[in-house]
């Protein structure tokens, strides 16, 4: 933490985690003076020195953009992914996917889809941060250890001060299922930490649902938690005025949708008599933004293919991982202007990498173009991780010598063959 200077900028939005805390104070040089968690403060405020490359050889930005356009123009089935960038960058990315008849998926959407699949086939009953903050009298979190990636979670969602609708927030009950320890801000609050095997979260949620409905499971424990303990949790949720069931989508494994659906059933059961709502913990890498932008522009969510007939969505087939494993894609455009979507190891396909950091170790991407970091280097818009609130982020420091993702993609897009029908 530095010393507050007269030219310090207040109310800055943090790009480093999906909470997007917006109370940061930064110096004119972009150094965090106040409000930064360990993740934010772990990032250097220095603008990195980066050089565009083609096959590892330094080139001008124009050359790199030209090569990227050439590759995209040739591709039959480009995968536009990564997508860790601001809203304008995402709008440009969807446009390129549309223009090139490509596939569109975020670089870290697997956990997110555990929730989205359930929302699409059953629906959802959700709440949002300010409601949790002011209303929740019982909060049950199914997550292993999300606090390391969301350091200010409790500060933002369940701060220790007063609640609007609860005069005695100390009575608020917080149950952390799966975690091995509670993070610091909770000291003094009524917090119960219950280790559990979250790969069995679906069973756990179904057992809780049965208990809330007054049915008795024929087992002594579930996912490592004794039935008596679960009975207490069920009772607390049932007795709550506004119970919140939170979960980490990514902690439930590849078939985690079943766990999310079971939690949804639990929430529906609770709402027969009282109020309760669900809260997926915010996913990283601006997945929520990529989801929103892709959805409004294409009408279909992430994992869409822009085919000759129009956008076609398939949450299984068109996942970035499956596309790469199947060899359906023949080029990858990977965007990583902020943390949360690390370029995976791709050996057999040309990769165009737009990143605010240097390419990962290993064979260089076919084209690398450094880009500015949103929020730090240019004004930008983020969806907070819960996907409801979007914030305008004023830049922290002088513009970087790099274009934004939106500007870079516009340059590339302008060089794509006009009107050509790209097969996909």
């Amino acid at each position: 933490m530095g010393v507050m200077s007269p030219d310090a900028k207040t109310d800055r939005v943090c790009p480093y985690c999906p909470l997007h805390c917006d109370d940061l104070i930064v110096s004119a040089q972009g150094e965090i003076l106040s409000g930064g968690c360990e993740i934010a403060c772990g990032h250097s405020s220095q603008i990195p020195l980066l050089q565009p490359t083609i096959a590892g050889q330094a080139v001008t930005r124009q050359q790199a953009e030209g090569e990227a356009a050439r590759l995209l123009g040739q591709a039959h089935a480009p995968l536009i992914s990564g997508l860790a960038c601001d809203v304008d960058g995402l709008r440009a990315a969807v446009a390129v996917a549309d223009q090139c008849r490509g596939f569109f998926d975020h670089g870290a959407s697997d956990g997110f889809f555990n929730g989205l699949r359930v929302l699409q086939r059953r629906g959802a009953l959700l709440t949002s941060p300010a409601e949790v903050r002011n209303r929740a009298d019982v909060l049950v979190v199914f997550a292993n250890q999300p606090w390391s990636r969301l350091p200010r979670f409790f500060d933002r969602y369940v701060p220790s001060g007063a609640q609007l609708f609860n005069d005695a927030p100390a009575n608020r009950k917080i149950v952390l299922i799966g975690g091995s320890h509670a993070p610091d801000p909770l000291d003094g609050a009524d917090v119960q930490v219950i280790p559990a095997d979250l790969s069995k979260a679906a069973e756990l949620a179904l057992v809780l649902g049965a208990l809330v409905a007054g049915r008795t499971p024929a087992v002594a424990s579930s996912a490592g938690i004794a039935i008596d303990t679960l009975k207490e949790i069920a009772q607390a949720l049932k007795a709550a005025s506004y119970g919140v069931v939170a979960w980490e989508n990514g902690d439930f494994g590849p078939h985690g949708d079943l766990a999310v659906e079971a939690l949804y059933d639990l929430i529906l059961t609770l709402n027969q008599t009282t109020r309760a709502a669900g809260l997926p913990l915010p996913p990283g890498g601006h997945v929520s933004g990529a989801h929103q932008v892709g959805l409004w522009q294409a009408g279909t969510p992430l994992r869409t293919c822009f085919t000759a007939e129009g956008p076609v969505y398939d949450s299984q087939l068109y996942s970035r991982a499956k596309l790469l494993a199947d060899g359906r894609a023949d080029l990858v455009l990977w965007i990583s202007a902020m943390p949360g979507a690390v370029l995976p190891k791709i050996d057999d396909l040309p990769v165009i990498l737009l990143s605010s950091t240097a390419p990962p170790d290993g064979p260089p991407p076919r084209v690398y173009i450094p880009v500015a970091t949103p929020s730090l280097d240019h004004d930008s818009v983020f969806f907070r991780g819960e996907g409801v609130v979007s914030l305008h982020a004023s830049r922290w420091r002088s513009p970087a010598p790099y274009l934004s993702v939106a500007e870079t993609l516009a340059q590339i897009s302008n060089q794509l063959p006009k009107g050509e029908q790209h097969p996909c």
Partner: protein
Amino acid sequence: MIVLTQKLTLPHRIDAGALVPAALAGLSLAQIEALSLKTGLKVGDVFTVAKSDGDVVVFRTQDQAVDCIGEGMGEGEIRVEGPAGRYAGRSMSGGTLHIVGDAGDGAGQGKSGGLLVVAGKAGDFVGSALPGRTSGVSGGVILIKGSVGQRFGDRMRKGVMIALGDAGDFCAARAVAGTIWVRGRLGQAPAQGLKRATLLLEHAPDALPTFQDCGVVEMPVLRLLLPSLDRLAGTRVADSSDYRAHRHLGCIGVDGRGEVLVLA
């Protein structure tokens, strides 16, 4: 009618969804070769096309790169001599799709009728729901003669699904109704969220924590069901001449009144 022989190397996976008997009937070889596939290529780029006797459309495949064979078919017969890629028989509403080899993930997804037979083994999500749909298979028969992957019969609504081999994890999850018969062994966590369907087994699963144990009871319905399944599978169900089964009622987490039956 038509034999489509896969050319050895494909540039990428192929979506053969358009090539169902009703769409090919009456077309010349040249017309078929000129048909566009969803993935942008033409049929002639991917397959050698020949005429054959009979009314069957035959795919001769080399690998699992040909997806969506028989997608949406409503009548006629397709025979796949070789492996089928993903989503074979997706959304089919009638007719017969016979895969002599293995089938990939999502075979029979969203199927509402007809017969899908896989002589080999099949992948994950066989007979599951189409994206965003509230329920999975809503009619007809799926017969997997080998083993099948995870989420077999996911959200099934109606019809019969049979795996003569083993079935993977989360079998019959959320199944609303219908009959799922697995002769072999199951992976973990079967029948979670079961509503009113029947999961019929010959080997007891490891655990059914959200089911109520009804004990071994006589099940009159088995007098009809078992012979019917025998006929569909072309095989004999394990000796069950007294039509008794160990019945587990659930899933109690969703107020389900379905059952896991283990033949006694």
